[in-house]
């Protein structure tokens, strides 16, 4: 029981971290970025390259990965999304294509084989009979800190409030003098950075390979769909629903079925309550 609780919180923390950047774009820009999983991959590989290939210290490696993600976000927005002028389906199709392109790019640079990322923080923790790695513990704590920080950023800073305004009513925000283009670009940058950070943790939890972007994308999609478009707190709650559901399935039913229930949940929610469990909130 305790084990389920611990495992559940750890996994959910990671999921929340994975999903939040995706949520942000959906909330502010009203589009689904299906290349979001590619940020995670970029982040993971950038960290791998700088720390394990070049031998940089971990912190600069981490910052390098974050920067790469932010840059990827800005480029995606500038070169692709902006040109498609908010045509949702076109954005989805083109970001899906882009994800495959990035995957192929990663194969070209790093080849096909899987790579192991050393834990960002080594060592293990023991609680009763349960052993947990410090690495995933740090991921969970980082997730909470990042989510908290993001919430403060959105509520308290000028840019954050502008993001909120655009998220609620883009046209209204534009009329009241907000530069929605800049706000969108900022959001894409932040989303890319968040994705990369999540990617470093995710990769250290599983491993690096060129198709690693699909699983986290599906988690992010699930969280956004089940939660109902994009509030940060909603993301946290739904990440826990899904995380715990998977752990409970794994522990008590069968490990192979963990994804099945997540898919059923997505389909069920989309069909029965397309607006999501919590409806439409603001950031």
């Amino acid at each position, binding site marked *: 029981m305790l084990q389920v609780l611990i495992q559940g919180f750890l996994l959910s923390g990671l999921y929340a971290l994975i999903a939040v950047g995706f949520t942000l774009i959906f909330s502010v820009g009203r589009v689904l970025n299906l290349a979001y999983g590619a940020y995670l991959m970029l982040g993971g590989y950038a960290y791998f390259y700088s720390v394990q290939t070049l031998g940089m210290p971990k912190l600069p490696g981490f910052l390098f990965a974050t920067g790469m993600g932010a840059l990827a976000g800005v480029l995606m927005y500038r070169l692709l999304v902006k040109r*498609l002028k908010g045509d949702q389906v076109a954005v989805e199709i083109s970001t899906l294509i882009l994800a495959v392109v990035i995957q192929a790019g990663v*194969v070209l640079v790093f080849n096909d084989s899987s790579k192991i990322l050393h834990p960002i923080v080594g060592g293990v923790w023991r609680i009763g009979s349960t052993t947990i790695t410090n690495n995933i513990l740090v991921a969970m704590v980082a997730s909470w800190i990042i989510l908290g920080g993001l919430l403060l950023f959105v509520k308290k800073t000028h840019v954050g409030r502008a993001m909120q305004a655009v998220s609620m009513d883009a046209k209204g925000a534009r009329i009241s003098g907000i530069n929605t283009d800049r706000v969108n670009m900022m959001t894409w940058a932040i989303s890319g950075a968040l994705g990369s950070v999540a990617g470093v943790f995710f990769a250290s939890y599983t491993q690096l390979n*060129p198709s690693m972007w*699909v699983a986290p994308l599906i988690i992010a999609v699930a969280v956004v769909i089940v939660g109902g478009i994009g509030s940060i707190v909603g993301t946290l709650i739904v990440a826990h629903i899904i995380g715990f559901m998977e752990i409970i399935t794994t522990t008590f039913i069968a490990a192979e079925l963990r994804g*099945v229930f997540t*898919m*059923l949940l*997505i389909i069920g929610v989309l069909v029965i309550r397309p607006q999501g469990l919590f409806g439409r909130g603001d950031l």
Partner: protein
Amino acid sequence: MARPLLGWAIFAVAMLLLPQFVSNGTLRIIIFANFLAIFAMSWDFISGKTGYISFGHPFLIGIGAYTSAILSYRFGMPVSLSIPLAVLATMVGGTLFFLPALRIKGTYFALVTLAFMELMYQLVQVIRPDLTGGTRGISGIKTILSGAAPNFYLSFGLMFAIGLALWLLSRTRLGTALDAISMNEEAVSGSGLNTTRLKLFAFMVSALVAGLGGAFYVHYLGSIAPRALFDINFVFTIIVSVLIGGSATIIGPIMGAFFMTFLLEYLRPLLPGSERYLVYGMIALVLYVYQPKGIMQILKNLSLRTRGPQTGRSGNV
């Protein structure tokens, strides 16, 4: 009507003569292109025409392929029976696929279909692996014909028949009505048409084609495995073929499938691994952002420009 039909006839004759002139290797590439064209047309009939984007088309193809594979491999059923049953099963699956379209559209629908595909991927591995072969799939499935040329004729005949039928169907008023759904569904029901029935029809046709394609494909390959089938890269290949060629045109997806297959082949010496998708995807992306209606539209624009404005409906196409 006569001119395009002549085009179809020339296409058929040229393709039927092809085995006289090209190597078996090339034929095998074209066989793949034929199947890809079938899948692309199936996608186009739902997503291109009605605008309900499917990100999970392998769900349908997979039902067709797995059903026929299991029936013939595990139960020794003849192909002449297993394929029709597989098509039927795919149409039942198509009904399942259709249910969400009653309530949701756009992004949400696309994501449900993606979830369908993932669900199928996972279920195939855990539910009755004694039938599906689990993660490793099934190999040694009965093939219908052997040799490149016979398989080329078979796959081309199938593709051609499906293509011509769908093309004729899209030229009827029904095709117009399906096009109208992608532009403004409310206005279609506002014209007194039952959009649910229209959509269901499109889904059934699409499922039928996907089932046929999937079943024949599995009996060409002789093997099936979940990872290659229920794969987002496969979805990507299908969608890109349609978009490159021009969606909602039926002919476009055929051109796109051939173009893309040969592009991939010609890249092979330069980029032997899956890096090929880098070039492939880039071309698709640039083309899509530059001309979302694909090659068909580019050709149309060119012919308007060369023929001059007297035949064009307006200068600004």
